[in-house]
């Protein structure tokens, strides 16, 4: 049951295909099996489902028409950006329209004076920074998938990147959204100023996983490129000591631009893949980037170097030049595909924990990994406490996927138990619905459903994702008793 969106009765309405063909050019409505195949999953390929039909609008007006049509026929709609999501947020519904925003790929306006850019939702994350580079500006959030993922998907997931320790997540770096409501109305949230009147709907929309509206335009905030960036690479002979060093740096009042950690399996995989000259015998490495004003960076590099050595680093390298700095990052940025080369399949987790728990939690993950017999490589945003354990498995071995999911679930519940959360940046999608039942009680989930209903009373936008039904939680809870207490004591169990 963990591999399906929340249960809803299927209600396919093939007439929606005919009607879509009236609204869009023939090539923009896909309905044959062969045409639908590329859309059957997002980055979480363990979950697959073909939609009833794919619509590829290219104007806002068309999106409005599609939504009016689907609202009238009561057909569910799943928005899709680039399909790199890792939690099944863009997983189609068998009776639903998959609304691809791929054709919305224009940068509408760059405003260097106000340091903002207005872009369509299908624009790739990296394309924004490339387009504004000549103004000395860039868009800060940089998910590792930035060459492929869309800004609309970034907003819907509130994506982060290696630089969000200092520069924040998507929610901190956007100013305004234009959306189409489930009824097909066009509306705006946020403004080009630093705030807007009324409730903060911009914050609410960010990370709402396509459940509250279709994003058709994003105004992003741009930052001036820092004068200088400098990276250090520190080796440790224990994961625990590397974790403690992270807290030391933050505790000393330094906020690095990025502070990333890789454990030995991840180091070896990355080194074999991109030859970044990583210390393959180290138990863990930390990559720390400091950026900003030249004078400031010089001082902080010396402070961080000393902090790392005092925290027990066996070796600290400071990048001699930009080429070496980029080499430090190369292995980190390629870590997921690198792990993909050493294992037939991997399953990427995304829990966040308080920084002081890094050492103990990593040790406990190693124990859980040994118990399950599946190896785990860790590569993650240490400065934020955002873990990405990669569980290595082989889907061709019967039962291994289930084992991987079980181990993943146990890791996420561990994150909640130490005061963290089940997802730091990849979203809930369909993947973490069960773990949401661990993190939230029935009043909280009911409140979230009420918020959903405030935007989408009929439940047509990406239904069954992100927030589990109480029913599902009751079933999950019956199988899964935490700390000896029932999570939903008020609900009947069956």
């Amino acid at each position: 049951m963990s591999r399906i969106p929340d249960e809803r009765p299927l209600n396919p309405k093939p007439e929606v295909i005919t009607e879509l063909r009236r609204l869009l050019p023939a090539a923009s409505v896909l309905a044959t099996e062969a045409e639908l195949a590329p859309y059957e999953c997002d980055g979480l390929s363990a979950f697959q489902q073909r939609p009833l039909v794919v619509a590829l609008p290219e104007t806002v007006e068309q999106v409005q028409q599609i939504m009016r049509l689907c609202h009238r026929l009561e057909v569910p709609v799943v928005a899709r950006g680039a399909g790199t999501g890792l939690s099944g947020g863009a997983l189609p519904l068998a009776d639903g329209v998959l609304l691809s925003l791929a054709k919305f790929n224009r940068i509408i306006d760059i405003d260097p004076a106000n340091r903002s850019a207005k872009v369509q939702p299908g624009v790739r994350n990296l394309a924004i920074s490339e387009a504004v580079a000549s103004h000395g500006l860039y868009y800060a959030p940089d998910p590792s998938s930035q060459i492929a993922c869309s800004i609309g998907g970034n907003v819907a997931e509130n994506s982060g990147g290696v630089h969000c320790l200092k520069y924040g997540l998507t929610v901190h770096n956007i100013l305004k959204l234009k959306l189409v409501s489930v009824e097909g109305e066009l509306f705006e949230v946020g403004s080009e100023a630093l705030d807007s009147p009324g409730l903060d709907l911009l914050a609410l929309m960010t990370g709402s996983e396509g459940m509250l509206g279709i994003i058709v335009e994003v105004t992003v905030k741009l930052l001036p490129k820092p004068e200088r960036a400098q990276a250090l690479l520190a080796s440790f002979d224990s994961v625990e000591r590397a974790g403690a060093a992270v807290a030391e740096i933050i505790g000393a009042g330094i906020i690095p631009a990025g502070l990333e950690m890789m454990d030995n399996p991840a180091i070896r995989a990355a080194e074999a893949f991109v030859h970044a000259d990583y210390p393959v015998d180290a138990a863990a490495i930390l990559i720390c980037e400091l950026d900003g004003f030249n004078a400031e960076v010089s001082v902080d590099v010396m402070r961080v170097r000393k902090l790392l050595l005092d925290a027990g680093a066996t070796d600290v390298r400071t990048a001699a030049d930009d080429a070496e700095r980029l080499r430090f990052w190369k292995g980190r940025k390629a870590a997921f595909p690198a792990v993909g080369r050493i294992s037939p399949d991997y399953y990427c987790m995304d829990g966040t924990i308080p920084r002081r728990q890094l050492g103990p939690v990593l040790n406990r993950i190693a124990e859980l990994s040994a118990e399950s017999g599946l190896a785990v490589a860790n590569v993650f945003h240490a400065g934020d406490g955002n873990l990405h354990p990669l569980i290595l498995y082989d889907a061709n071995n019967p039962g291994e996927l289930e084992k991987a999911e079980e181990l993943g679930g146990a890791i996420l519940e561990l994150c909640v138990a130490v005061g963290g959360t089940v997802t730091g940046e990849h979203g809930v999608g369909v993947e973490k619905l069960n773990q949401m039942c661990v993190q939230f009680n029935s009043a909280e989930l009911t409140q979230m459903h009420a918020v959903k209903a405030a935007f989408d009373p009929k439940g047509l936008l990406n239904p069954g994702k992100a927030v589990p039904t109480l029913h599902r939680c009751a079933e999950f809870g019956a199988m899964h008793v935490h700390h000896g207490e029932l999570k939903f004591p008020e609900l009947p169990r069956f």
Partner: protein
Amino acid sequence: MAEQLDANTEQAIVEQVTASRSAGTALTIHGGKTKAFYGNPVSADAELDCSIHRGVMAYEPTELAITVRAGTPLAEVEALLAEQGQEFPFEPPHFGDQATIGGMVAAGLSGPRRPYAASVRDAVLGVRVLNGKGEVMDFGGRVMKNVAGYDLSRLMVGSLGVLGVLLEVSIKVMPRPLGRITLVQEQDQPSALALMQRWAGQALPITGTAWLNGWLYVRVAGSEEALSETQRILGGTPMANQEADAFWTAIREQQLDCFVGERALWRVSVPPATAADAIPGADLIEWGGALRWLRSEVGTAVDADHASTVGAISDAGARIGSESESESESESESEAGAGAGRGTVSSARACVATGGDVGADGVSAEAVRALAAAAGGHATLFRAAASIPLPSDGVFAPLSPVALRLHQNLKQAFDPDGLFNPGRLYQ
């Protein structure tokens, strides 16, 4: 802070809300009442005092986060953070000694550092909140990144208590910079705005900018090396640190004379590069140009205190130029002999009446809102003396029909019986 937490205060708040729900009585929620002036008037039957619910729940400096009960005095929390060399990055205004954390979050107002660091909303990580059904709920958390479920914690920021009663808040904190310096230079409004934009386009460690009375103030923070390097780039004369701190406090707390008295004070939030003449007559510009304060006179005589402080400065008069007409201006020119006052707190304190297109006899809400909207922003009637009639549609800029419907639906989703702060945000 080894203070004992009172285990009964949360329950007391829950019980009062539950009782109000049964009785069908509306509540006006308050902490220290320091921001009672802000927002639309509330018509409620009873008060809900959150200031009883105080105390620090968790504070671990290396986590860069603090969790406090909503009724905890803001000043107390800031003192605790300072002991550990930390601070709130958004420099919240207090508007009085009694300010509480709950009020800070519900009002969602940030201070001078906002465009260069974060807003209250940016820094909120999680909330514990009581909805109108009497349910206590936790959203968000204490960790930096959390996308589990909708971001209902940030939705609470600036909601002015219309969705629920904040019980606890977890907020991101930042290390205090090693040093700071404020540089002052004489600039007219258009060139000050141009400089603010030029600086913002470079990665400089700026933590505050303000234009007032013909002077441009810029605050930078960092190591000694960074400060001297930045000073070389920015130019201007350094202010004594104590005086500079008093200046930024006066800006943040609106202790400048132009913020008090028989006037309406408009808060105009616009894209930073908005031209000076797009929002004519701004008295004070903050946030690198993104925040402009406008007074509208309502035809009453300037109060004595204002007039006397005005006398202490000279440079202010220069800005008014020949179009000056009001009584206070001619006074300021005649008494402006001292000639000193550049970059001092006293010079900052007095904002003299401005000429310009916005008439001195009261600006209509429509006019201010139209200017703000044309620039891509919005205007709020931030403070107004009791004698000033409020705009019929409230102090906040009206919402689009879709946004208004979403506001009403969200209110219904959190507070179906309309118990909390009816009318404070929108009718």
